[in-house]
């Protein structure tokens, strides 16, 4: 648990962070968000004392962070930043091994840990362990940055816009990977971003700041439901209703779908989706056509379907762009698992 008690930071006469109190529960992701200059990064850096607080107290698992030497404190806290900051003169392996080495781990233990982390972030150890950072793509470098933060298995992670510098597609993939990791690792994470969609997607709780002050600290659902004030409401944006759907997943609202077998001639069924004998989605049925095999269109299942863990906001966007009122829900192999209708997507708000 991270407990900030009346923490403040002043530079001369200007106040960067003003009397901030915040409690991040163990195993939760707390996202700090706000416009530039709101003090979110300052707050993050005060936790590992890259910036020393002018006032107040920060407790990490009940221990006052000022009771340790700064470098000792930091070795126990994972840290990843937007510009990644991989060491260009060290290999990927050596970059990830930095903190374990500082902590004096034995070589075999470091070796095993780095290999485990490379697997975890989906980089082939044989190919990348001895590569230098300049050989990595932006997304790969960010993954190595995250692995480096995780290297010594710290309980607390501080992330300063770690996915800020990559293209939107890569960012979304990194976010999903991060959520998957967090489900397994259950770290206590403080995550700075300026992207409200990222905050809503990743956070257990959002702390929204303005001019060094905490404006609201709540779960994304609470914040979307009841913004504390006009600033929070404006910051979240006018499409609060849509944004709430990002917190609901297709699996929570979809309905079963039998699917029409490819060889069926009898079309007296409620389903409009055609599957082969293995249950894999092959197309959809046009009511004007009688036989299922005529229903094929040029679309592959990847183009029209959503997954159970897709959020409803994305599914809705897919419906609008395709002009479909019902989308098939498939698993990774394309097997039809159910379907999602427009009414169900619209009603998802009520299921919160």
């Amino acid at each position: 648990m991270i407990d900030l008690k009346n923490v403040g930071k002043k530079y001369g006469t200007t106040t960067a962070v003003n009397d901030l109190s915040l409690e991040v529960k163990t195993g939760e992701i707390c996202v700090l968000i706000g416009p530039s200059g709101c003090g979110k990064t300052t707050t993050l850096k005060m936790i590992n004392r890259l910036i020393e607080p002018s006032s107040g107290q920060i407790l990490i698992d009940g221990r006052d962070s000022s009771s340790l030497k700064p470098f000792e404190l930091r070795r126990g806290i994972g840290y990843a930043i937007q510009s990644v900051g991989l060491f260009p003169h060290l290999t990927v392996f050596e970059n990830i091994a930095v903190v374990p080495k500082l902590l004096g781990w034995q070589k075999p233990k470091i070796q095993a840990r780095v290999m485990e982390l490379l697997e975890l972030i989906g980089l082939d150890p044989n190919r990348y362990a001895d590569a230098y950072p300049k050989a990595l793509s932006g997304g790969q470098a960010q993954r190595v940055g995250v692995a480096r933060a995780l290297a010594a298995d710290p309980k607390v992670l501080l992330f300063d816009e770690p996915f800020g510098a990559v293209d939107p597609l890569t960012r979304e993939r990194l976010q999903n990977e991060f959520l998957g990791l967090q489900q397994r690792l259950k770290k206590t994470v403080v995550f700075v971003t300026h992207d409200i969609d990222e905050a809503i997607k990743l956070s257990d709780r959002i702390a929204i700041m303005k001019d060094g002050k905490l404006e609201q600290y709540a779960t994304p659902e609470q914040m979307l439901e009841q913004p504390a004030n006009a600033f929070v409401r404006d910051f979240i944006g006018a499409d609060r209703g849509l944004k709430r759907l990002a917190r609901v997943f297709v699996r929570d609202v979809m309905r079963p779908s039998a699917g029409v077998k490819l060889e069926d001639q009898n079309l007296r069924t409620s389903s409009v989706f055609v599957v082969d004998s293995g249950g894999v989605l092959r197309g959809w049925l046009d009511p004007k056509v009688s036989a299922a095999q005529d229903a094929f269109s040029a679309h592959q299942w990847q183009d029209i379907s959503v997954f159970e863990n897709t959020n409803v906001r994305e599914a809705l966007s897919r419906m609008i762009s395709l002009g479909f009122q019902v989308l098939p829900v498939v698993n990774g192999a394309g097997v039809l698992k159910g379907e999602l209708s427009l009414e169900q997507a619209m009603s998802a708000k009520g299921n919160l």
Partner: protein
Amino acid sequence: MISSRNSLPRVLALAVLSFALILFIFTQTRVWEIVLKFLFPLEQNVLYGTASLLSLAFTHLQLIAVSSLITTILGVALGIFVTRASNREFLPLVSGFTALAQTFPPVAVLALSYPILGFGFYPVLIALCLYGLLPILSGTLAGIGSVDTAALEAARGMGMTGFQVLTRVELPLALRPMLGGIRTSLVINIGTAAIGAAIGAGGLGLPIFAGLENQNFAFVLEGALSVALLALWADWVMGLLETALIRS
């Protein structure tokens, strides 16, 4: 990529062997005589007779070795000192002075130092130290200044102490400009030291000045070739050293 061609032991072995070869060339008085006689058939004496080429080279190398060692240690230490967060206020002053002093030609440095420091080996040594300091200091400042701030922040954020940040991140990343500065300083010093003969330091400048005085260009060529040989050797060895030490 690490270049396996130039490992550090290999470079050191090459440096020692090539140095031995140069010393061997300096001992070959007969060969020098034949070559210079061929080039200057009208001169009676084509070899500077007061001292052997080997002993001149020895004095010259002493000047270079001592001054370069002092300047490297001093330049790197000063460069590190002014780039520490607590000493940053000195940085503009030192880097400004360094830039300004670089515009001074080496001859002017020696000419100006003579009235102050006097005549002989040690005054020239001091002048060489002062002048050779500048490229090393500016190389160190440029090198440390070029280190990615994100890498520095990451290093501190991961729990490196100030000393660890310096030795594990800043210096390895600053190595290329630093070695470049040392290389420049060394080569300039080898040339400047020859001018030092004019104010009594001895060394390979002696035949050059003697030749100029007596209109004997065989002497001039003998000295100049020897100095050039040393300078080219030093430049080549430093280049090899860079490829051996720097990996990226």
